[in-house]
């Protein structure tokens, strides 16, 4: 299994190279560059010489292939270069935001699992009753309500009921857990609710299917307690596909919470993405694309490994 994991990681290299090529050249198709945005963005009159000088300093005057070569060389040595806007290393720019984004993603995933598994299970077991319909309404609402609106409503509720708003500046978990959690629990709930809806529906339909399997009938014929039939015999099989959904959603949460971060005023990866795109900050955008691609690959690998843990039929050699 370890060998399989190493092989899979090695196979990720060509994928990442592909991502690198596409992201580099797609950005170059977009008209304008960071220097223009930086110096002429607010309508200031800047001479062409100043712009040329700035371009030269950033290496943007070199031929395209040379720029690409430089960047690929940097990648090979794990050097993502410097942000064209702030001049700080790309890794550093990402790192300070990743902590927050990662924590929100994990918390949202936890909220999602804690909502989805019980809701999906109850709905499946009480199929066709009012409980099932209530759960289905909850999940449909989760799918159709945009999380930024839900975020705004949560903020409004906090303000109206408790006359309190989450702080604007980010406190890391290790500095002050309480302040950190009271700040991040709200976006995690807003996002996790939506994300639980997909998973809950999946758990429900999977469990309904599994409950019709022959081995469930066998378990009942053995006189196994109904509770054990569901937890031991049914859920273990029903939750397998949910792992895939959970994993892919988790990877999405890392870079995809653009609007939610805006609503809760969080300085996360999503916000950085929007900023760097609007600034044409090529190196930073490329760096983030590479990071998210790598993240997806790792999450996918983790899902496959988890499958092997939960499903004895799957063995990697």
């Amino acid at each position: 299994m370890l060998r399989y994991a190493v092989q899979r990681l090695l196979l990720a290299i060509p994928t990442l190279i592909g991502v690198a090529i596409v992201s580099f050249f797609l950005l170059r198709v977009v008209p304008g560059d960071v220097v223009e945005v930086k110096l002429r963005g607010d309508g200031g009159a800047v001479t062409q010489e100043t712009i040329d000088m700035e371009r030269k300093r950033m290496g943007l005057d070199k031929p395209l292939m040379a720029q690409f070569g430089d960047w690929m060389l940097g990648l090979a040595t794990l050097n993502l270069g410097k942000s064209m806007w702030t001049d700080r290393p790309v890794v550093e720019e990402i790192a300070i935001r990743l902590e927050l984004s990662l924590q929100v993603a994990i918390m949202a995933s936890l909220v999602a699992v804690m909502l989805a598994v019980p809701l999906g299970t109850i709905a499946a077991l009480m199929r066709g009753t009012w409980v099932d319909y209530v759960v289905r309404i909850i999940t449909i609402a989760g799918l159709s309500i945009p999380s930024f609106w839900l975020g705004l409503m949560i903020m409004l509720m906090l303000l109206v009921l408790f006359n309190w708003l989450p702080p604007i500046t980010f406190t890391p978990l290790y500095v002050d857990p309480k302040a950190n959690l009271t700040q991040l629990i709200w976006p995690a709930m807003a996002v996790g609710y939506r994300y639980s809806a997909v998973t809950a529906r999946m758990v429900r339909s999977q469990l309904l299917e599994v409950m019709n399997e022959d081995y469930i009938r066998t378990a009942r014929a053995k006189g196994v307690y109904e509770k054990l039939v569901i937890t031991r015999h049914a859920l273990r099989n029903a939750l397998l596909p949910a792992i895939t959904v959970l994993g892919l959603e988790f990877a999405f949460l890392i870079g995809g919470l653009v609007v939610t971060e805006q609503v809760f005023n969080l300085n996360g990866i999503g916000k950085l993405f929007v900023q760097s795109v609007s600034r044409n900050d090529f190196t930073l955008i490329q760096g983030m694309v590479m990071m998210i691609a790598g993240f997806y690959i790792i999450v996918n690998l983790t899902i496959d490994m988890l499958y092997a843990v939960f499903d004895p039929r799957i063995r990697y050699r």
Partner: protein
Amino acid sequence: MLDTAASSSSGPSPAPAPSGDGTLLSVENLHVHFRTSVGIVRAVEGVSFTVKRGEVVAIVGESGSGKSVSALAVMRLLPRRSAIVPQGRVMFEGRDLLGLDDEAMREIRGRHISMIFQEPMTSLNPVLSIGLQITEPLQIHLGMDEAAAQARAVELMKLVGIPDAERRLGQYPHQFSGGMRQRVMIAIGLACNPKLIIADEPTTALDVTIQAQILELMKDLSRRLNIALIVITHNLGVVARYADRVIVMYGGRLAEQGAAEAVFHRPRHPYTMGLLRSVPRLDRPRGLKLETIEGLPPNLAHAPPGCRFAPRCPYRIAACESEPALMPTDTGGLSRCVRVPEIISGAINWTSGMVAGAGAAADKRVTPLLSVRRLTKHFPVKVGLRGKKAFVRAVEDVSFDIYPGETLGLVGESGCGKTTVGRLILRLEDATSGQIQFEGRDLVAASSADLQAVRRKVQVIFQDPYSSLNPRMTVGQIVGEPLHVHRIMTEAERQKARVGELLNQVGLRPELAERYPHQLSGGQRQRVGIARALAMEPSFIVCDEAVSALDVSIQGQIINLLEDLQRELGVAYLFIAHDLAVVRHISMRVVVMYLGRVMEIADRDTIYREPLHPYTKLLLDAAPVPDPTIEKARAPRLIQGELPSPLAPPAGCVFHTRCPMASDECKAAIPAVREIKPGHFAACIKV
């Protein structure tokens, strides 16, 4: 929900005499209804029977006869959302199981009554270890601790003949073969020393040799441990081997019951007679034509009043339109037929219709229509991610001929390569090496244009009439598609007329062309598949397990249809099947395969009368015959062990690992297929 109303016996079913002494289970006037979109389906109506301690009772019937539903009702495992039990009692050791609360019923399941299901492949939980699945009832019902339960599990696995039990305890179901899984199911069923085991088609999904092993095991265990057994099956051979008493069900009602010997030798219900007549049998001379029960089983959603079997009964009279009562017979059983006295007196003689005699052999052996030479197919399988290649040797050096208008039977257990041979001839797979000469052309080397031409002449009928027809096409479109594809008839009018003609030919009304496959019964669908194959007026049809999925009475109809068509159109068949009796009935010559290789080829009568190869002998021996006298008298020589993996077939003769005659010479070289007598080939050095 299962609700029980007070049983005021409304049906004319007399309550069985509660003999008090040895009665373990007594089902009294049981009714089961299902709520469906087409209305209430009365799946079981007024069924009563008893089971004594240690007795083996078989419930026989076709699909939809209510046999499995009755068993599930006893276990209270019917789907709660749709099933209703409006009437009836299930008395088990003095308690009415239908009146128990869920917890009390759970304590009975697996403890006092256990159940073994049909599909060993899907009846074990794939993500739980075998050990856990066996120890579970021990811990729940007997309160054993982990260690004691494990020890008992090992003991049980040894009892049911699973070698290397300690190690296999930690393995998962996918690591077991079908036969081994069924042994595990039996071990689970035996775990808490139940008083009654209900086995629902316990061997249907297994190969003949494995089936024989499992049957012997269950019979032996029930005798030794004095466990009563209810065996539900459609296979009359299985019934004959097992049962003390037989219950025949038809259309949700009990048709006949009685002692096994009586029911088989002196059936007292026309349905039982028809059933016994329509099974092709190994122990009787082959009749010219199979007797069949015409028509289709009743639709239980709109069942007409009166005898359920009347519409298909050759002896029906006006009185059959009123509900017949269960009448005692001279053989000590019960039969639900108004003409029982006439049957007893012999006025209705069930054997009268039997046509004995030799089949006409098509002896126009000029040149073979199809001739297969040294055909070999290896499927590469990747082992590991970097693709170390291994080969599944599915077909190895197979040669045979098929003459015009002939039926060649191809038999063998699952995994012997018989289906692959069929697929190679159809060029659905490409052969690794060898030749397939069809009308002078080599199909293995044929170009795609040549193939297009050949495909008009070579057609196929598949096993599963449920999944091999496109559900989104009408019957007319399915049958007419080949005409369209090969641009034989492009005008819609002529095409329609031809489809009507074809449907007529296979015994379907032309109006069915407008229907969709799901609106047809299994037998009707298989007829559609045959009509589709006939559309191109082929000279050769591959029938891949074409009747295996059908009920006995329907199976007989389809076999007769295939034979009629052959006589009419002169088409040759390659009839691939695992049922030896069916193959004997339809084939003129028979090829026996084992692990990708040909073991024996001979004329039908020769191979069944004087088989030469030890594998053929054991195969014939393992097949149960629907006659309790023969079955109970003989001690079958069982084929030991299981099929070796085709990834690493045994060296030398592939059968030597299971062969009772094997010696060291057999391991040394692969025996060639030799002509031992004229027209009789076998691959064995001992013959």
